[in-house]
């Protein structure tokens, strides 16, 4: 739920110093509100995470450019609905090895916090139907296989002496959201002791 507004500089300013001011609006409320950290700034982004932290409301944002003695029209976003539009980051991935199996233990990411000291809120609490798309790559056969889970996966069918790589994406069934895949994790299975004894 980290929500950052980005924009492009206006065209045709030819080196003039351009500054920007951002305002936001909570849908259903009365007026546009200013953003303390985004008044007359020269960067082209503004972090609105604190302003939009109530993910069940909907929001608009707008930005105005100022240069020399002139200023642009306000450029406005569409209606933004954090609850349905936020990109859910990848889960924490822990690999546990068993006698003849490997388990992938997945833990939901945490919601962005206004104050780092705040208690963590798991995205699982916000999206009880949060699921994970696990992709497993066999480096020998060069084959991908995919699994859907909501917490842990155990693989008992892995072949010995092979490197496997996995990456995991969180997803929430419903409107389309851009996925944020986890980093690739690789592990190798042990040699088959039986073949070693022959």
């Amino acid at each position, binding site marked *: 739920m980290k929500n950052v507004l980005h924009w492009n500089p206006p065209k045709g300013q030819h080196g003039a110093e351009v500054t920007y001011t951002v305002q936001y609006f909570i849908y*259903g409320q*009365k*007026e546009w509100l200013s953003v303390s950290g985004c008044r007359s700034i020269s960067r082209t982004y503004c972090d609105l995470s604190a302003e939009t932290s109530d993910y069940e*409301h909907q929001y608009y944002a707008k930005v105005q450019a100022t240069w020399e003695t002139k200023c642009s029209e306000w450029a406005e976003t569409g209606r933004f609905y954090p609850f*349905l539009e936020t990109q859910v980051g990848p889960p924490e991935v822990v690999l546990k090895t068993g006698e003849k199996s490997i388990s992938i233990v997945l833990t939901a990411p945490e919601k962005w916090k206004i104050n780092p000291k705040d208690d963590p809120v798991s995205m699982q609490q916000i999206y*009880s139907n949060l699921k994970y798309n696990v992709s497993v790559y066999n480096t020998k056969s060069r084959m991908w296989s995919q699994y859907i889970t909501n917490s842990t996966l155990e693989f008992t069918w892995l072949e010995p002496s092979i490197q496997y790589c996995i990456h995991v994406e969180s997803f929430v069934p419903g*409107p389309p959201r851009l996925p944020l895949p986890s980093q690739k994790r690789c592990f190798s299975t042990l040699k088959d002791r039986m073949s070693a004894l022959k």
Partner: protein
Amino acid sequence: LRRCLSSVDVHRIEQSFWDIRRALQTKDTFKNITILSSLKNLDSIKPVDVCCVTRHLLTFYRDRVFKDHQETSHEVKRKISKIANLFLQMQRTLEQCVHSQCGCSQEATNATRIVQDNYNQLEVSSAALKSLGELDIFLAWIGKNHRETSAA
């Protein structure tokens, strides 16, 4: 309340709505007015009232919003009629599923009256357009509440 509404129906509505969401919401210029209030107000609905409020809101969309809305774009019109048909299907599913277990408390009745009052504040075509643009609020509420109330 047994879980009545199938998530398949909800997802099919979401997909159709998502395709026309920007078009609908951009035409809605009354940012300071909301028909369904925010999910927060709907969230105050107790689990026991979820069925009643769902039923009333489905009827509200069927009998007022879909009828009152004037649409010029054929593409948007097509998607809206698909959504309307899925709403009818959802209504039938809900009716068959709940039979008589769908009582309405005073709070549930008040909540749906607020929606009607909000609707009546605006000129009809603006109200219908705004209500359609707020389908994401309603669908998010259905998704949250018809998943969590799966235990009778």
